[in-house]
């Protein structure tokens, strides 16, 4: 396994651990960003290895989707906060109360 794959995999696993182990929604969002960074590193390295610009196109699209996901996630968190609800994921057991 190449060093770039190891780093990408480590970033993904640490991000996954953050999502699974942290309670606050904002902290979980940070973990998601880390997972996306790991995927980006692996995709870019593989695109360089195979000389495929399609891999880089996928990376650009993934970064754009990550930005959109962060914006929507933060909007939802702020909406929950303004609605007087907790930012803990455990308190969001129902879609509608």
């Amino acid at each position: 396994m190449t060093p770039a794959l190891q780093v990408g995999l480590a970033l993904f696993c640490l991000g996954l651990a953050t999502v699974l182990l942290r309670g606050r929604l904002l902290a979980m969002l940070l973990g998601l960003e880390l997972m996306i960074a790991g995927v980006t590193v692996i995709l870019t390295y593989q695109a360089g290895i195979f000389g495929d610009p399609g891999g880089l196109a996928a990376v650009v699209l993934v970064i754009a989707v990550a930005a959109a996901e962060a914006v929507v996630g933060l909007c939802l968190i702020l909406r929950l906060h303004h609605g007087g609800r907790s930012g803990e994921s455990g308190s969001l057991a129902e879609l509608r109360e």
Partner: protein
Amino acid sequence: MREMAFYLAGAGAVFFSALMLFQPGLYAAAACLLAALLQAAVLLYLAGSPLVSFLQVVICSGGVMALVVVAVMSTGRDDDRAGGPAKRVGEEVVEGRQTEDHAMWAVFAASRPVAAGTVLLLGVEVLLACLAGGSPGVVGGTGSLDSRLGAVLFGPYAVATEAVALLLFLAALALVSGPERGAK
């Protein structure tokens, strides 16, 4: 020389990511994530794609982190009641144990050393990359692909590009519509 910078950036990214996991406060966690994303941007640059590295710095390390900090300021709580990995959401936690765990994980909470370490590490990596000279495109790579990226994005991937552009537009609409309006 360039390989050394690559290994240094990889080690830094993993270190700051692991540090982020143990931060009880959201500001410190965001600082660690920022450091990890900057190290990942160095990795992308050294892997042969300066354009993607630039996008990573501008979008992820810049825009998204600014949004996260604004969200933390808006919610008004920096401390993480869930503490470190020892506690899970939904578990009944005794108050005394919570304080004890919080103090234990607070040992790792250090925003200023993280910022100083990030700047130092970035300086060393840039210095190594400059000493190596040449164009980026490194460590097993076949050189820069950035010049062919535009043709691919608006060629075979045109539909996906348009879909992502629409997604970004909808996300901007969600941001403009405002969280307060939905709460009311």
